[in-house]
């Protein structure tokens, strides 16, 4: 018998239809993938299942019994826990306090039993073979990937029968993503149901038993994983045929150096980095997570202190803050790692977010021209196909992938021609991913210079002209041509002798 059966599920937000008559069913012991393009309604669906949001119409049966959780606690009582796409952790608490938040083990006096909490945390981390985490570390000190892992631990701490993973791998580097996939199989083998949402086809292929495809809030198809091809899946997801994900790599780099970096250091994580990024080039930055990639991007953008020399288009510059980085046509723009913490004003509109960096451009005699602003906003929304009711919709209510598009659009509106893209396709659907890669190549052909980091290694391999492999805060190797491969990157990231 099916563990979960959903019929005619509907949810509207004002005039926006998030789900319309969606159906779904899944069994215990399977990994069930939920696929669909950005804004298809996947997150809304799992928010309803996990009690975070209430549906307008339709029915849900769990174990054949009616199920309509009023809040996440009610969902938990029925054995359902979710790892949300946008993390729900509290920065001021420690790792273990977050994991057990509101369900802390108590002493007889009802105070928190710290020893017991520590013991349970260690047992949990051990049982599922978690990557190293210090239970007492303050959450705000963790990277996005580490936070994602804590979020997963928090979900597992509830020992759920149904675990929902909403793009949990999107913030994880290769090794940790690999671990999560193994863990997912292990959970299914224990007889649990795992509902797995991801925009990475390879992952879905590796672990899903069955898959359900959403489009525009409705269920389009359900497949046994081994009876359907990638092509069919993608076509059903985006409603058209996708020829190829990665654009043809035509070399457009010129001899002109756009960004030259020498002996560049920042904090304890980045030391003595040298490289040159040429006009028309897409330069990949890879390596194992935590070897200085994040620090490199932030320091180049002026968001953290650094030493060394930077030349932009042949001129030495000093960049003390992001404002100086963004100035004019010779500037540098960044798509930051943390889209909610660094990229978007969640409580402001799509329009205000898109134009924030360039708002001065719409002023005449000191006064804003709303027409000019609206025209450019419309152009960008159409160009990137941002799925929003109107440009006045609050950025925080967009689907994850559409939030990422707004950040991308905000960067494109600046006139900077040196672009720092830190994981620009995180949470973006396949169709749009292909478009973003094509856009990157088009920009390069127009003379932009792009520094590109991705936590998804195949993207580096297929899109970048060259790849810098970072290790211990420095550049361990620069791969070109045939030497760019996943194996090549990994080897360079791990072997001391590969220094180039």
């Amino acid at each position, binding site marked *: 018998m099916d563990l979960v059966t959903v019929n005619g599920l509907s949810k509207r*937000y004002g005039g926006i239809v998030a789900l319309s008559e969606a159906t779904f069913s899944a069994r215990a012991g399977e990994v069930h993938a939920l696929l669909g393009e950005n804004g298809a309604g996947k*997150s809304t669906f*799992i*928010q309803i299942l996990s009690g*975070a*949001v209430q549906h307008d119409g339709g029915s849900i049966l769990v174990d054949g019994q009616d199920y309509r959780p009023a809040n996440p606690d009610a969902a938990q009582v029925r054995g359902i826990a979710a790892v*949300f*796409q*946008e993390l*729900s952790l509290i920065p001021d608490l420690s790792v273990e306090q977050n994991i057990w938040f509101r369900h802390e083990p108590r002493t007889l006096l009802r105070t928190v039993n710290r020893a017991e909490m520590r013991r349970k945390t260690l047992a949990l981390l051990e049982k599922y073979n978690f990557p190293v985490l210090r239970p007492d570390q303050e959450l705000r000190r963790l990277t996005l990937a580490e936070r994602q892992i804590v979020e997963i631990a928090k979900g597992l701490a509830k020992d759920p029968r149904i675990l929902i993973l*909403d793009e949990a791998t999107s913030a994880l580097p290769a090794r940790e993503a690999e671990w999560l996939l193994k863990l997912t199989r292990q959970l299914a083998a224990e007889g649990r149901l795992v509902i797995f949402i991801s925009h990475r086809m390879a992952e879905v292929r590796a672990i899903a038993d069955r898959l359900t495809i959403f489009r525009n809030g409705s269920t389009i198809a359900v497949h046994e994983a081994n009876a359907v091809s990638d092509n069919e899946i993608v076509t059903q997801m985006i409603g058209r045929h996708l020829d190829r994900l990665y654009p043809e790599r035509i070399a457009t780099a010129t001899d002109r150096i756009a960004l030259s970096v020498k002996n560049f250091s920042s904090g304890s994580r980045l030391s003595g980095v040298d490289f040159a990024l040429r006009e028309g080039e897409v330069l990949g930055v890879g390596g194992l997570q935590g070897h200085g990639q994040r620090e490199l991007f932030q320091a180049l*953008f002026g*968001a953290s202190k650094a030493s060394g020399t930077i030349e932009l288009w042949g001129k030495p510059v000093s960049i003390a*803050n*992001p*404002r100086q*980085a*963004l100035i004019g046509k010779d500037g540098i723009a*960044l798509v*930051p790692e943390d889209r909610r*913490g*660094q*990229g*978007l*004003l*969640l*409580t*402001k509109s799509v329009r*205000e977010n898109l*134009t*924030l*960096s360039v*708002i*001065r451009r719409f*002023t005449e005699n*000191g*006064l*804003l021209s709303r027409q000019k602003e609206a025209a450019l906003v419309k152009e960008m929304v159409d160009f990137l196909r941002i799925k929003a009711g109107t440009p*006045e919709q609050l950025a*925080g*209510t967009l689907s*994850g992938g559409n939030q990422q598009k707004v950040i991308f659009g*905000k960067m494109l509106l*600046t006139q900077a021609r040196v672009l720092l893209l830190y994981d620009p396709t995180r949470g973006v659907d396949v169709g749009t991913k292909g478009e973003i890669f094509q856009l990157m190549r088009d920009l390069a052909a127009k003379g932009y210079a792009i520094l590109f980091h991705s936590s998804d290694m195949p993207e580096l391999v297929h899109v970048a002209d060259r790849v810098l492999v970072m290790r211990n805060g420095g550049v361990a190797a620069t791969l070109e041509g045939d030497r760019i491969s996943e194996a090549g990157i990994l080897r360079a990231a791990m072997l001391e002798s590969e220094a180039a």
Partner: protein
Amino acid sequence: MSAFLARNRLIVLAYAGMVVLLLVTALFSPGFLSVSNMRSTVVLAAFVGIVALGQTFVIIGGGIDLSVPWVLNSAAIVMALLCGGQDLPLVWVMPLLLAGGAFIGLINGVGVAQFGVPPIIMTLATNVILQGLILVLTGGSPTPSAPALIQYLSVGRIGAFPVIALIWLALTLVATLLLSKAAFGRHLYALGTSATVAEFSGVPTARTTILTYVISGLTAAFAGMLLTGYSGQAYLGMGDAYLFTSIAAVAIGGASILGGSGHYLGTVAGAMVLTILTGLLPALNLSSGALLIVYGAVILLTVSIGSETFAGLGGKMRRKES
């Protein structure tokens, strides 16, 4: 139109509250709606409104200015001392004191934006220091009376309109332009919503923060001079009431005290609400102690009705987790 209402729900609410309060007050004290009484209500509200102008900018930017009482008080006393009851010195005294107010704001702003001192501590400290300076300066002795010109600005009339009401109107226009029509306004809302995102977006966060405190210093000093004209004299402690009322006016006007939202148009309604309230309470024939208690309680209630949290109970806020 409905989109406008939805986006500015709290401001509309503040004006609705103002009208209701007016009617209730008229019920208890007939004659409250008379022209002359309305006129004096607007004059009193103007003082609150002008101090709260700077406070609005600071609060939208995510800060708070606790130094307004003694910036106001210092400007009042120094003006009275320097002018000695004469009009002529105002030519240089007024610009000087406005610059002085702006300078205090600059110190506040630099302390907060460049040295990372929490706004509460920073502005509280300048407030106390100014208080001390003024006590040393005056030795507690009374000051000369206010120059006639200043009295004209605060109690005079042009036709049917109080001069100060017209000044307030002009300032409202300027504030509205700054918030709604200038790049500065966009930067300010972004800063108050998330300082990190603003910084990553190239917003000049430090400059924007400093500017808000400078504006607050300016309006507090200006209000101090006008208030001296209204009372005919400057005295110690005349600014004290404005700490609470300036913040309350901003909050009643629908701004989040955490920053990132609100508008001066809301604050204008807030200043009116507070002033009408002070007119209503005496009509209830309460002792002065009981009056303060009711005053405080009513403000608390008004602010919480307007605040997001309470609105959330009614409208069931949809905040998206994912």
